[in-house]
């Protein structure tokens, strides 16, 4: 399942919901991305995530299907927030459920690497006296390329 929303999420609630729907789960991997309180050594006031409504959902669905086809997963979830977020707030949640640990761990890693470079989001960091759009990192591209999408 994928959700693109402004609201916060609860890891425990989402895990509970997924466990109710799925039988014989042996492994749960999760990843949470959080707004840090520094942006390039400066105190961050907020981070605003802009996205492309419609395309975001389409691309997240596509990559979730890719994960489901590559690994033996019982279930998966991607929640990505948008809007203005403050330091310490959750940005993104990925959860994968499988029988065996390898499938859950690798697919979770794959999904988060992919989101970094292919999720149609752009981040504006507001600091005390200025603001700037976050540039994509080459290192993120290298991470993502190892999955051979």
């Amino acid at each position, binding site marked *: 399942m994928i959700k693109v929303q402004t609201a916060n999420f609860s890891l425990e609630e989402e895990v509970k919901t997924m466990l109710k729907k799925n039988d014989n789960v042996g492994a749960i991997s999760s990843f949470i991305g959080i707004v840090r309180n520094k942006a390039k050594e400066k105190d961050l006031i907020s981070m605003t995530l802009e996205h492309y409504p419609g395309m975001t959902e389409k691309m997240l669905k596509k990559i979730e299907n890719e994960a489901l086809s590559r690994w033996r997963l019982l279930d998966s979830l991607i929640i990505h927030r948008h809007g203005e977020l403050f330091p310490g707030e959750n940005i993104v949640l990925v959860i994968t459920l499988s029988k065996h640990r390898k499938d859950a761990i690798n697919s979770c890693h794959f999904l*988060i690497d992919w989101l*970094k470079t292919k999720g149609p989001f752009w981040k504006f960091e507001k600091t005390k006296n200025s603001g700037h759009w976050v540039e994509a990192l080459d290192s993120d591209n290298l991470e993502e390329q190892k999955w051979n999408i």
Partner: protein
Amino acid sequence: MRILYFSWIKDGIGKSQEDIDLTGNIKNIADLINFLSEINNDYNKVFSDLSSIRFSKNMNLVNIEENIKNEDEIAFFPPMTGG
């Protein structure tokens, strides 16, 4: 044609979307960029370095040679950075 702009491209042009009527000589994304670049100096500046701009047609990433029609939704944005 509906055109969408995101991130610093939106800021540079000063709008997040606009509708234009495609004229016959705009066949692909490259043609569209040339057309937009001539509107004014803001557009010209935004499109001066294409290496940092990505394009989509109807919500699919495409390259600069992609053919376009008046019914398409085109978007311009920097490299994505979610997560």
